[in-house]
């Protein structure tokens, strides 16, 4: 595995950089609950992937950590802490102090986050001057250093380029440079590579992995693409219909999933074995926010559902030393994952 594995931080030793506990988010002005009881944590030097389809609540969760919930959405319960600072209920000035300093973020479409009439170098240098009080020359130099650190060729020349002159991959690297400029503790990547070409995507993912190990950055990666999360993340949190259905170390979860939804996602996702032609689908559709059934939310699409599954809400329970699953039958089912002893459909 070329992305070098850092020494895994001992979870018990250091406090997590980001801790989300029992997060509930409502939408539509408080009428509908779209995210229910989501908890996870990210430690320094660790990368955690939030994976789910549309409507799973992963984007809302991510936005709440960034303080960027759309109008009408609000955190109704639970809390999130970043490097000791309480995020829930933080006011605007509190967020301004955090952003760029403890928290950095990159999003899906790099071009729309850059001012087309300023050079990219200037756009990176500006917050350096404002936030860190660097002089113009120092900010210029630091910006060029950052561009080099994110793998841009000829960073000095890139400094003077306008966004339209750069490709999607280069723009995304520039934005990553901006995000890490303040040496944040946490970097959030929300579908950051979704809009990039395959080869460039791999390069940017490698970059994120490298930054994580070089700087001890905590990385929160949000994606609908299981394969992307599989490549980069140490831990995976699978979301469905606003709830966490499974989490744990990525390799273990993918090798032997403990929730039928994860198993289904694996079958649908990029296979990796090109000689096989397999187009698995998950029948049905996720429930609408606020219209989730009382019992297990995945039951109507689950191949292993029983009557007991629909009777009442299912809790998230431990399913292994560092793993949890929201499946009543987790212990008795043997679900197929990437481990060799599986029999593929």
């Amino acid at each position, binding site marked *: 595995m070329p992305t070098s594995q850092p020494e895994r931080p001992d979870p018990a030793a250091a406090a997590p950089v980001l801790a989300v506990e029992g997060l509930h988010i409502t939408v539509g002005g408080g009428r509908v609950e779209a995210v229910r009881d989501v908890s996870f944590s990210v430690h320094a030097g660790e990368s955690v992937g939030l994976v789910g389809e549309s409507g799973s609540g992963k984007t809302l969760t991510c936005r709440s950590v960034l303080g960027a919930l759309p109008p009408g959405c609000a955190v109704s319960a639970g809390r999130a802490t970043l490097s000791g600072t309480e995020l829930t209920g933080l006011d605007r000035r509190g967020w301004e102090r955090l952003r760029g300093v403890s928290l950095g973020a990159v999003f899906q479409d790099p071009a729309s986050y850059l001012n087309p009439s300023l050079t990219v170098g200037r756009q990176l240098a500006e917050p350096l001057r404002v936030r860190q009080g660097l002089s113009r020359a120092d900010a210029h130099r630091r910006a060029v250093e950052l561009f080099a650190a994110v793998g841009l060729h000829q960073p000095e020349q890139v400094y003077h380029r306008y966004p339209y002159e750069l490709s999607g991959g280069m723009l995304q690297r520039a934005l990553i440079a901006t995000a890490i400029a303040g040496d944040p503790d946490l970097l959030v990547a929300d579908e950051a590579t979704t809009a990039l070409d395959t080869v*460039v995507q*791999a390069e940017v993912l*490698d970059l994120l992995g490298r930054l994580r190990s070089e700087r001890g950055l905590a990385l929160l990666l949000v994606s609908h693409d299981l394969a992307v999360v*599989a490549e980069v993340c140490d831990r995976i949190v699978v979301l469905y219909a606003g709830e966490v259905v499974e989490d744990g170390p990525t*390799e273990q979860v993918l090798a032997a999933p403990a929730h039928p939804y994860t198993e289904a996602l694996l079958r649908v*996702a*990029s*296979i990796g074995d*090109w000689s096989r032609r397999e*187009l698995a689908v998950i029948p049905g559709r996720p429930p609408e926010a606020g219209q989730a059934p009382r019992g297990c939310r995945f039951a109507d699409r689950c191949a292993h559902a029983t009557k007991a599954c629909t009777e009442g809400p299912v809790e998230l329970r431990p399913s292994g030393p560092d793993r949890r699953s929201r499946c009543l039958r987790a212990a008795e089912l043997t679900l197929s994952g990437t481990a060799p002893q599986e029999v593929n459909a």
Partner: protein
Amino acid sequence: MSAEQDEGSALLRIEELSVAYGRRGGRPGRQVLDSVSLQARAGEILGVIGETGSGKTTLARAVVGLAPVSGGRITVDGAQVTGLRGRGLREFRRTGRVQYLFQDPLRSLDPDLTVGALVAEPLAATGAGSREQRADRAAEALHRVGLDAGIADRLPGQLSGGQRQRVALARAIVTRPRLLLADEPVSALDASNRNHVLRLFDRLRDELDVAVVVISHDLSSLAGIADRIAVLYRGRLVEQGPTAEVLTRPLHPYTALLTASAPSVRREHSIHAGQLRPRADLPGWALEQHQQGCGFAARCPFTSDACQVAPPTVGSAGGREAACHHASTWREQLAAPALAT
């Protein structure tokens, strides 16, 4: 062309196609495609893969007469389409033998027309049959793509993304085409919808005995359905052949880079992308934008002086082709994984 390819049965034949935009007077313009040759047979799905700037969408558009062809020939079902203009082009389009599926179903369906009107439009615009006959055929097309006929009264804005793409597909097959070109048919869809629609292509290809060309930037979708795959890089064809072989044992370093870069849930890569990235010491000429040399030289770790000349497409066993001077030797030169950046 390999002798194994039966020349006679190719439904779509593209020969040495070149497309250039902005050609005026003496100015050569921007070359988007350069001497690309491809074929697709009835009942076969040909996948065309390439990144941004590869010219893959232009290729599809050229087949339907929407791109300025500057050289080469395109033949569909025996009829040459490259020279067609104005009335001739319109006549050919009215036969409905070739259909094009756009990338974004939301914008390629008129938001003010009902699904029924949309699907029947190719028939209504050409005055084929009576109103009832058209409605019947539209219902049949909707049924084939797995949609209930009751959806005919809805407007596109009331449908989900997957449903819209199916409606677009129904519209494309209602004329019983011989050739279907699909431009990124699943890129705008959710992962769960994606496979639903791809499976549809698989089924339709068998039921309708149609040749399908799927343009995509995403390897995994093509791996699922394409029988053969063609790889484009910067307007040139670098490799083509049966999908499984091309992807598991690529002949061209770019194809290898693509497959190595595609993320996988297994985290298994026989070659890692890092081994295929360009070396730091590229020869100067490679960095200039030469039309004569190999277009991939600037990003290739195996560039040598021979690459100053554009590599010819060389066929090899099993219906495969690749355009690389080092096609048979680059694997030996692979840097060990630990040394790669």
